[in-house]
């Protein structure tokens, strides 16, 4: 568990950080909380030559409202997210899922932006941001740009971020008034989810008017379950929800590991989608 040698810088502004990343090229990595990156380095599975620690850059933590949009700083820790009143009101799903991330020690160090930029499909937050239809704001040498979550996660541990771009904030349209639930299925509390389902539900007259379903660990990226979402629209009782949830694994390509096979993951996605949506809709 000894990492290879690396250089380390701790810039004080976003501009300095971007310059350091640009100078470092492909061998530079952002250290945003280190809860995924450092273990990979210690296992000698990642070999960055430069770590750019963004932990001391002011203005990258905390939340604010811009109209109906909640803006959360990328360096907000999971603990910070969990206890943020704005997050709880406008993105309750994010708070609920964040509460299931690892353990308190990790939640005090790990950050929202770090988790999203790491883009592990088995991590809880990427699928949540997909379901929340968030946008990710990056700053690079070519300026600032906004990337929709559905275009952000490109492959296993890959994102639309260029190596010299820094994720600075996450913009989430308010889902105040929506029902939400994160259903995480794991063998022990500290393990990755075998499958996780993030459900958001807007109800109208007792029926589901609109449902969004994000899937954790059902492919090389976090996924939505469009077929299930479509089938859920209009569902008015538990039986209809469960029926619709049967579509949840459509189009997914889950992996095999020591905890589960692809076909079992597909089965879980269907069962857990039903449970998550019922809980989100208050029908459970």
């Amino acid at each position, binding site marked *: 568990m*000894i990492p290879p040698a690396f250089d380390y810088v701790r810039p004080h502004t976003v501009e300095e950080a971007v310059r350091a990343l640009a100078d470092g090229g492909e061998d530079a990595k952002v250290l945003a909380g280190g809860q995924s990156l450092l273990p990979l380095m*210690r296992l000698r599975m990642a070999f960055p030559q430069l770590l750019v620690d963004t932990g001391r850059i002011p203005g990258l933590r905390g939340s604010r409202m811009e109209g109906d949009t909640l803006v959360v700083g990328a360096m907000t820790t999971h603990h910070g997210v969990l206890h943020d009143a704005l997050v709880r009101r406008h993105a309750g799903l994010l708070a609920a899922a964040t509460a299931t991330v690892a353990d308190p020690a990790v939640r005090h160090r790990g950050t929202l932006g770090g988790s999203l930029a790491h883009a592990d499909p088995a991590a809880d937050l990427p699928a949540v941001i997909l379901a929340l239809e968030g946008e990710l704001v990056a700053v690079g040498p070519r300026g600032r740009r906004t990337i929709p979550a559905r275009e952000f996660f490109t492959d296993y541990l890959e994102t639309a971020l260029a190596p010299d771009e820094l994720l600075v904030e996450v913009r989430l349209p308010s889902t105040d008034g929506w029902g939400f639930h994160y259903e995480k299925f794991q*063998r022990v*509390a500290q393990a*990755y989810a*075998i499958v996780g389902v993030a459900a958001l539900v807007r109800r109208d007259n007792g029926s589901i008017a609109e449902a969004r379903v994000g899937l954790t660990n059902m492919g090389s990226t976090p996924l939505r379950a469009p077929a299930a979402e479509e089938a859920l629209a209009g569902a008015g009782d538990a039986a209809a929800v469960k029926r619709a949830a049967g579509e949840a694994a459509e189009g997914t390509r889950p992996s095999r590991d020591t*905890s589960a096979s692809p076909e*079992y993951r597909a*089965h879980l996605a269907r069962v857990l989608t039903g449970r998550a949506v019922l809980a989100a809709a208050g029908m459970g």
Partner: protein
Amino acid sequence: MTEGAVEAEVGRARLRKEDARLLTGQTNWTDNIQAAGMLHLAILRSPMAHARLERVDVSPARELPGVVAAFTGSDLAEGMGSLPCAWPVTEDMVHPDHPPLAVDEVRHAGDPVAVVVARDRYAAADALEAVEVEYEPLPAVLDLEAALAEDAPLVHADKGTNRCYDWPLRAGEDYAAVRERAEVVLKRRYHQQRLIANAMEPRAVVVTPLAASGEYTVYSATQIPHILRVMLAMVTGIPEHKLRVVAPDVGGGFGSKLQVYGEEAIALAVARRLGRPVKWTESRSEGYLATHHGRGMIQDVEIAADRDGRLRGLKVDLLADMGAYLMLVTPGVPILGAFMYPAIYKMDSYEFRCTGVFTTRTPTDAYRGAGRPEATYAIERIMDELAAELGMDPVELRRRNWIRHEEFPYDSIAGLTYDSGNYEAATDKALALFGYDELREEQRKRDERGDTVRLGIGVSTYTEMCGLAPSRVLRDLRYAAGGWEAASIRMLPTGKVEVVTGTSPHGQGHVTSWSQIAADVLGVPFEDVEVVHGDTRAAPQGMDTYGSRSLVVGGAAVHHAARKVVDKARKVAAHLLEASERDLEFTGGVFSVKGSPEARKTIQEVAFEAFTSHDLPDGMEPTINAGHVLDPENFSYPHGTHLCAVEVDTETGMTRIRSYVCVDDVGRVVNPMIVEGQVHGGLAQGIAQALYEEAVYDDDGNLLSGTMADYLVPSAVDLPDFVTDRTETPAESNPLGVKGVGEAGTIASTPAVVGAVVDALRPLGVTDVPMPCTPERVWRAIHGEEDPA
């Protein structure tokens, strides 16, 4: 309180003397040890399960900054013996060579290939990447049955076979005849998955040489400093009296540090060559490959009974995975279990056979319980199967077959003499605490209404053999050493007490418990006792800590030694009080003359007199010291009844433990808090085997569960609140009446949990779920191997 009516220390839930240090980080782990000029070792390990080493070139590593030396297996081979196996279980056991550093072949992923020595551990780790190795792949040997086939590829080609040994045991009537007559015969196959002990502290070793005098101090995170000293002397040729072995603070072992490891021999060899202190500390993922594994067996079990439930016979056929090499007690682990398959039950016939098999995986060896959990699992599971076959309640089936309390001492069919026990009392208490009848009623109701979350109830009425071990029994089992334990006690001039023990605690709290034992006998305050251990210079004799032996053998030795101290102190006191020894009373640490209570001497006063030696009886040696080396007469036999209720979600396959009750009979209890801690930890570990942990290999022999992300160790939040209670039937074989508690929870809980899972699913046609009962395995068991609709 009147004089003499001192509250007994034994039986008190004393806070542990060790904990203030442990909890405030003022510990002395091996990895914390620093020495001037110390060098750091890093070990290159085979990435392949089986390969010929065509070329190992360490010279590029030697060129790197900070690197002091690098060695291949051939470089260190001179003067280096094979790592020891102390338990050749049969005369013709196949015993392959086991070099600490591979010389021409690697036989499991993680087999060490080269060692790099550098000024810091970073340089050492970096230099590993510069070592050049050419591997010529050889076939992996993984399947225990296939490994025994005529034309199977061989782990050790020079041995001509993968069969390590066959070890049979037959007792009672001829099994075939008993089977013929029996009304019911059931056969089942169970798999004991490989487990990896996750001691909180990884392994580490530091060696400091005194080159001028040829002396070496070996600090190691080991359970066995005394055995290690003997064995390292034999492996390296360094004379035993020039070796000092220290087990500093050691953070858990669970059997994994009951070993003589290659890294210990390598560190000693390197320190000897370079004349400099060296340190090696394993990382967790390195330990998963290089620290011995536990379990790893296929059990074919057959039970023969009458329709009324009476057991007639038991037949057990084991295939035991030795892994690539025989380590300290590798072959003996399944043999320890051989005596425990009949458990607490009476029967007419017992037949056992174990075949040890070499594979290209990390060697197996002792893991908490070592053979006994495997035995208990198999018998308790097949008792459940028999109960189901007969339509009988599983507790009732056990009741019909167990040894009744009035039948003790009882000679078990496997040849052990169970000295004491009361299975009725423990079971009745457990059933009441558990609410057995109410849970059975709930189970029936849930079944009727087709609840998708099913309730299951598991029971385990276990016994085990602890207190290893009577030396003559070990001789008969062909074990290479004895099973005694040593203790000595020094009364210091100020009346304080030093207890020196040959046990080597690594979390068990011996300092506390031994203080309680000595304080009671000597009549001194608990706080006035210090316990010295874990250093062959300070505690020169001992057989160390494993197999729930320490209290039963080592604690009893402390008791005997303390009695000898009192005997001598009585002589001194009688002399000082001018009374006859016969007229002296000794209570609460005070000698007084019967009938004249004002004539008194405290044991502290006596100790001081013995120190000055100004006025001792003629011919008496000064000071009061006493030692005792105890060879136990018998094993001890803890027992108990564990009950587990699980809820199984049939839609997902997830198992949740709803309640867990255990009533253990570990004899007299020295410190109830320590006992409860041992039970809790043991339960966690046994439950982990049932539900969570498994060393998983792929078809090429790579360890897939190579980090804690894939090898799932449960934490407190994953476990239920345990309801623990006890009955106390004192052991007859030692003066304390103690039986040992280190392994009971692990031994008992695994079958209780898996039994509960199977009980929940039995109406769906399920008779087994392989361990660990992962959600997917449970789900597949419910649905067969079909994909869900």
